[in-house]
């Protein structure tokens, strides 16, 4: 549990912003924090994706639900993170991973639902008609025509959601979760800057790496986009 840092300790602190020996010596601890950070991010993203897919399907099937779904997810998105984590801490207990994963997943909904819906709406009606004309069943059409065409939009949503989740995971450290965020707090409490700097900069670096990875996955999943771009050049 994080408590306030001790001011007198910090006033006396004269240690440098980063001490590289510590990083080498305590690498195991840093690595564990990275892994925990990734696990929290992935659990939140998986959960967010499943819920968003269901919500997007409902919104696409029953158009009138679009407005309430957007309104609710927008509202969730604006909830203060400290308050939401604190609210769930007594419900699931501080030691439970779900206390962190649930709010993190909730924050991804707005971005993911918006992008999934936009992706499916961007499928040209002519393509859909052609698929129907070829005698595809509705399920088959959704899977093999609509979904692949919507993938670029969905991936953009996943990218933005993943990058912001990586940033928010650090905040979950206030409830004793939070991977690299815990390094930040352990440094702050002892007025020892190295873990703090390492935790903060690694969480930013992790976001950039994940961003780049998802772009690469996109290039691999939808090669025709690149080809089309090359063709129009």
């Amino acid at each position, binding site marked *: 549990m994080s408590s306030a840092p001790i001011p007198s300790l910090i*006033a006396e602190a004269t240690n440098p912003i980063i001490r590289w020996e510590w990083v080498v010596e305590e690498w195991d601890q840093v690595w564990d924090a990275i892994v925990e950070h990734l696990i929290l991010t992935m659990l939140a993203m998986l959960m967010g994706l499943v819920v968003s897919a269901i919500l997007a399907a409902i919104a696409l099937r029953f158009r009138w639900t679009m407005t309430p779904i957007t309104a609710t997810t927008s509202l969730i998105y604006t909830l*203060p993170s*400290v308050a939401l984590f*604190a609210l769930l801490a007594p419900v699931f207990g501080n030691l439970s991973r779900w206390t962190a994963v649930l709010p993190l997943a909730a924050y991804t909904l707005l971005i993911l639902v918006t992008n999934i819906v936009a992706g499916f709406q961007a499928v040209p009606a002519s393509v859909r008609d052609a698929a129907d004309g070829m005698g595809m069943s509705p399920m088959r059409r959704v899977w093999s025509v609509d979904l692949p065409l919507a993938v670029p939009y969905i991936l953009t949503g996943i990218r933005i959601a993943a990058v912001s989740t990586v940033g928010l995971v*650090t905040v979950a450290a206030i409830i004793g979760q939070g991977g690299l965020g815990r390094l930040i707090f352990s440094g702050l409490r002892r007025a020892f800057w190295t873990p703090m700097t390492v935790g903060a900069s690694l*969480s930013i670096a992790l*976001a950039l790496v994940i961003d780049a990875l998802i772009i690469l996955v996109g290039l691999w999943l939808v090669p025709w986009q690149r080809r089309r771009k090359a063709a129009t050049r």
Partner: protein
Amino acid sequence: MIGAMAAARPSQTAVPRDIGFFEWFFDPDTWTGPDGILASLVDTVVLCAAVTLVAVAVSVPTAALLAHLRRAEVSSTWLVSISRAVPTFAIAALLVPWSLERGWGFEPWPIFIALFLLAVVPIYLNTYTAIRQQPEGTVEAARALGYSERSILTKVEFALASSLILAGIRVAAIQVVATEPIRAFLGGDGLGRYVRDGFGQNNNTLVIGGIVLIGGLAALTGLTFVALERLVLPNGVRRLARQQGDKTP
């Protein structure tokens, strides 16, 4: 350095553990005094308002000018992709040792800069797209009427875009207010201190109080902007905005 430290010293809120939430929250003594809720509230509101104002002062003119000149289109679209992903907490944490080393204390600089970066993006983006999307014909008509480039920007483009620009400022302000409580966990104060101290003392009354205060202020910020939009914007501009589609969450 010690002086700055004393100013930034986080004071602990001490409350008996067995006190009920309502008993605590509705006690006038809880609100007044140097350690009262009102002091923290003012603390938070002043910081958030300052951050938002500086972000507006920096982003609105820059974005308006660049959009008018049709410049920086690529970098503006690139901004979209990071718009929701500014890692405020990590940025603030990185800046804390740096700020202490210079004797500037825990706050306000680290949290100010981190929140500023968070606020700049939606304001810049909304201003840029709002001005960029004004119909070419309107701008040409103004030009034909003899408007100077400066008046075109301020009296035509900016006026027509004002609703979307204000929406961007609203999003930024809400995000700033919603994120500011992390400051209490980085050696500062503000409303987040009730959650922090509640955790530290294992006192749920304080935690709940903090949640109510933080959530309440965020909701109030949103409502303030709704009222502001009604007050400031002419009916025509608001109708136009509805037609153009409010593209902000």
